[in-house]
């Protein structure tokens, strides 16, 4: 059996032809992802000082309007301006993402480094507990936490954060094990450096690229998780602008005013796309196989 003649051409087309070209592609990926994420962050900041309308202002006289000069993206069933809601909703998305990733990194990174640096039993125990946590979906964790602490953005953030700990711990541990085997760590020990100092001065800076990549990937997952939680009524409470909430509120009018689903949906998709592009690009940029071809 022979392969179709186009196969090899396809295969060579998929593989990077050389460092030069792939690096340019990596640069473009980072630039596009970074621009999208930057725009969302900018919109979020802008919404703090200015939105076209007060995102919470209910106006029964202008319900369910389609796009117009006054309301660019129309209004929802309460007469609220959709553009203003999306702008304000980006804030919730960003805050949830930042706090969730922060919680995950602050707990996960030290756990990963510690378990890589020790040869004692508890290093292994930490990773097995980690596996256990990995088995819990973020949503299940959020439902449990909500049952205990009640609905709220804080509960959602913490739940998503806790659920993201294992991926940080895993990635950092594998990176840190590699760093611990290097001669400069041996040299640092030979110079009389204590373990804590080695962790901070030598291990942490050298796994930082992994942490940054993982942060952007986890951020994207957090955005999705927040939308899902709010949609299920476990995240942002009524009155808090949130993309997931908008999806839920527009659901019953899906056939009357599908744009109420489309616009927040596009916002969520765009945010996740931007973060994933950024994460992929950064991973390739930090890839040691590409790094030396500067």
């Amino acid at each position: 059996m022979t392969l179709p003649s186009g196969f090899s051409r396809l295969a060579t087309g998929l593989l990077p032809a050389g460092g030069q070209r792939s690096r340019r592609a990596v640069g473009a990926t980072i630039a596009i992802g970074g621009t999208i994420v930057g725009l969302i962050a900018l919109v979020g900041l802008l919404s703090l000082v200015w939105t076209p309308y007060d995102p919470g202002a209910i106006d029964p006289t202008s319900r369910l309007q389609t796009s117009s000069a006054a309301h660019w993206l129309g209004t929802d069933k309460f007469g609220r301006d959709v553009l203003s809601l999306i702008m304000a909703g980006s804030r919730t998305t960003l805050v949830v993402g930042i706090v969730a990733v922060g919680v995950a990194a602050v707990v996960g990174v030290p756990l990963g480094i510690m378990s890589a640096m020790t040869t004692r039993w508890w290093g292994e125990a930490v990773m097995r507990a980690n596996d256990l946590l990995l088995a819990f979906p973020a949503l299940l964790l959020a439902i449990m936490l909500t049952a205990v602490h009640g609905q709220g953005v804080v509960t959602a953030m913490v739940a998503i954060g806790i659920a993201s700990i294992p991926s940080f711990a895993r990635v950092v541990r594998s990176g840190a094990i590699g760093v611990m085997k290097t001669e400069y760590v041996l040299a640092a020990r030979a110079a009389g450096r204590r373990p804590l100092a080695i962790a901070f001065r030598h291990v942490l800076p050298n796994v930082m690229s992994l942490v940054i990549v993982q942060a952007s990937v986890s951020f994207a997952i957090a955005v999705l998780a927040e939308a899902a939680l709010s949609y299920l009524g476990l995240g942002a409470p009524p009155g808090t602008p949130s993309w997931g909430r908008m999806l839920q509120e527009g659901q019953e009018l899906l056939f009357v005013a599908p744009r109420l689903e489309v616009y927040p949906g596009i916002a969520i998709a765009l945010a996740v796309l931007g973060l994933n592009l950024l994460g992929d690009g950064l991973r390739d940029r930090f890839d040691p196989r590409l790094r030396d071809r500067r």
Partner: protein
Amino acid sequence: MSQDVLRVDGLHVQVGELELLTDVDLTVQRGERVGLIGESGSGKSLTALSIMGLLPEALEPRGSITVTGEGGRHTQVVGAAERDLAAMRGRDVTMVFQEPMTALNPTMRVGDQVAEVMRIHRTVPDRRAAAARAVELLDKVGLPDPAEAARAYPHQLSGGQRQRVVVAIALANDPALLICDEPTTALDVTVQALVLDLVVRGVEARDAGMLFITHDLAVVASVCERVLVMYGGRVVEAGAVHDVFTRPRHRYTRGLIGASDLDLTREDGRLYTIQGSVPSAGRFPAGCVFRNRCTHATTLCEGLPPWDGAGPEDGFACHHPVVVKP
């Protein structure tokens, strides 16, 4: 009066039932340069790590290792608390590693890495003094434009330059003992000589002792005064470099020297080699560890050959030593 900076007595290292080092005796005096030679897997690096107290946790050392630092401060390495070891490492004993590419932290400026070792042991009063002293040291090891080099990251330097930085770090605290683990193996031949010269001058200026690990006999001949030959985790021969190299007594030493002499050929015109290869740990024969590769081995060699010599500084352990014709 001569003063031992390093005294190793009856060092054994084992992992589980497996013995990796057996009865290693070794002394280095102030101002003395001692070579440790042998093939890969003969226990040279393990000896160095034992002295630093840096053995992996699974390996258990037995015996006695005493390091005497500045002001007669003794450290009994085997069984020492981690705190005492940390105080010794980088201060009384420092180490130059084989691979200059990986011996420096890629995320730290080299000046900071030189300054760090002085800050750890507080041999300089403050951060600023450490930075100034780092530049001074980088100048001493011959880096062009040391102030600029101090601000560079390791990847901006060549292999030889990096090894110079590693030497600067090793000499920063004026150690009593410098351990070099194949410091020039990864370097170009032309750079090798420069780095060796640098190390020797650095050690001489400080009147420090040096333990030089290598499998390059020519390097030992040019750098060291005394040499120990290791095989199978044992010291098989020791003596002054000139004596050992011109009149080897142990059959293994003879083989090593024969194999490294590229002018010497057998009757069939081929270079001399030691037949076979180094067994993996635990596969060495009982009795004389070399007997399965030795052309002179007899049944006598199934018994452990006794140490034949005045002391650990000079002697050999072989049942059938090379007899020198007068």
